[in-house]
């Protein structure tokens, strides 16, 4: 059914994120350094891009957010996508304040049924092969 490329390891930055995905958790980081004004840290990193510190903690998102922007890909010859037909790629703004690349799935026609500002919720899409389900989003 779904055959998206899997994350590859060893890769220390993103390993906790993907362990979370295996447990149905959408994880993100916050900086705990005293005096740092940063809010959330995402993509996963081993330092805070606002202060350079390495005192980061992992948190679990509620998994709800809004579509910031999107595209519907009509042409991609990569394995895993060549048979999908038109599919969406989106940047989703999670309510906790981080923006992630993902896909909005579960609509009849991605060319007409996705909109900027649309409310969406994370779903962990099981893959045919590989150990990691992929976080995608469905309209709420």
């Amino acid at each position, binding site marked *: 059914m779904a055959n*998206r*490329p*899997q*994350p*590859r*390891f*060893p*890769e220390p*930055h*993103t390993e906790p*994120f*993907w362990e979370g995905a295996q447990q149905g958790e959408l994880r993100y980081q916050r900086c705990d350094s005293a005096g740092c004004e940063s*809010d*959330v840290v*995402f*993509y*996963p*990193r081993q330092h805070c891009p606002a202060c350079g510190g390495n005192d980061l903690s992992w948190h679990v998102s509620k998994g709800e957010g809004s579509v*910031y*922007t*999107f*595209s*519907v*890909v*009509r*042409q*991609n*010859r*990569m*394995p*895993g*996508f060549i048979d*999908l037909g038109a*599919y969406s*790629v*989106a*940047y989703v*703004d999670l309510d906790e*304040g*981080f*923006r*992630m*690349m*993902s*896909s909005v799935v579960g609509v009849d026609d991605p*060319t007409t049924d996705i909109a*900027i500002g649309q409310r969406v919720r994370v779903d962990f899409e099981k893959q045919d092969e590989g150990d990691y389900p*992929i976080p995608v989003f469905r309209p709420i």
Partner: protein
Amino acid sequence: MAQERQAAIVGIHEYPLRVAPGVSAMNIKVDSIRAALDDAGLKWSDVDAIYDAQDGEAGGGLQLAAYLGLRPTILDTTQVGGSSYEFHAAHAMRDIAAGKCNVAVLSYGSTSASNRVAIGTGGRVTPAPNWAANMEMPYGATLIANYAMVKQRHMHEYGTTDEQFAGISVATRHHAMRNPEAVKAMTDLQFVGVNEITPRDVLDSRVVADPLHLLECCMISDGGGALIIASADVARGCRKPPVWLIGAGEATKYRENGGDITTSAGAQSGPIAFAEAGVAPDEIDIAMIYDSFTITVAVCLEDLGFCPKGEIGPYVEGGRLAFDSGEGPALNTDGGGLSSNHPGMRGIFLLLEGARQLRGESTSQVPGARLAVAHGNGGLLGGTHTGGTVILAKD
């Protein structure tokens, strides 16, 4: 602020073919360097600085010096995607002003068309596990989809229409039809309809990644070129009038939580370049803007200050970007990446055509053109990218 005129483009060459089977990228670079030196009236051994984006089969930079048989005192291998050449020009300008070198060569060669490289629609495969790939590879975001997401947001936020974006494709095709090398490019690459186009044609072309249509996307060609940048002393003895580098700016931008995807690195690099040059956008005759896609031009013209953010739609309506509109600025008068030449990293062609215009050698010549801007955008407009802005002035 007074313009410092210490470095000038003195020699240029654009490789004439866009489909060149059996030719290596290194051949294209060497042929172009030889021709650009000849254009300047300089010798192979005059070169004392190499700026290289690490393209070509041999691997660029260190390998290029060895391949050419030169021993430069400056070797700059900045690779920041399609804007590498604007960065190179900025560095050459700086190095020449500092007295570190006198004759700098920039070159580019690529065989993307003959090698069938799917730049915009292919997979972005990385050799080793890394954080960026792990977070993005599962979603199949092609390069075109990345730029398309910027267009989608621009349309949403500012009400910019497909017809307005199409005006950018129409203007560049108008210029391409006057450039025999661009016409040959479109013919050799088997474009459907090597002719002037209308906004309707653009909207009727197939969607590659919503909301970008095929005629809003650059071609994938072979090609390359070279340019020679020299000190004022050397420039005075060259064959052609110098085209001065009077300002340059560099910047990088990336996606941030809560950030504005419709603002590019040009918003940072542009003001730096214009301030150094002591000129304003409304004085610019020729706008050589990296047209990987219509959205790239739209965002970069706004960010460079040609119009306020979000107002590119009304700004381009009425055809002002055509070289013969009488309004200006004239956009990509060679035909651009959309209709003349895009082997992967177009930045060098922006400088080449800017120089041609200020010499009076363009096939879509703007009478009396005095000032040009070359603005390259490298990487992904909706992700991590660079902006390099160079202001050029007629002697």
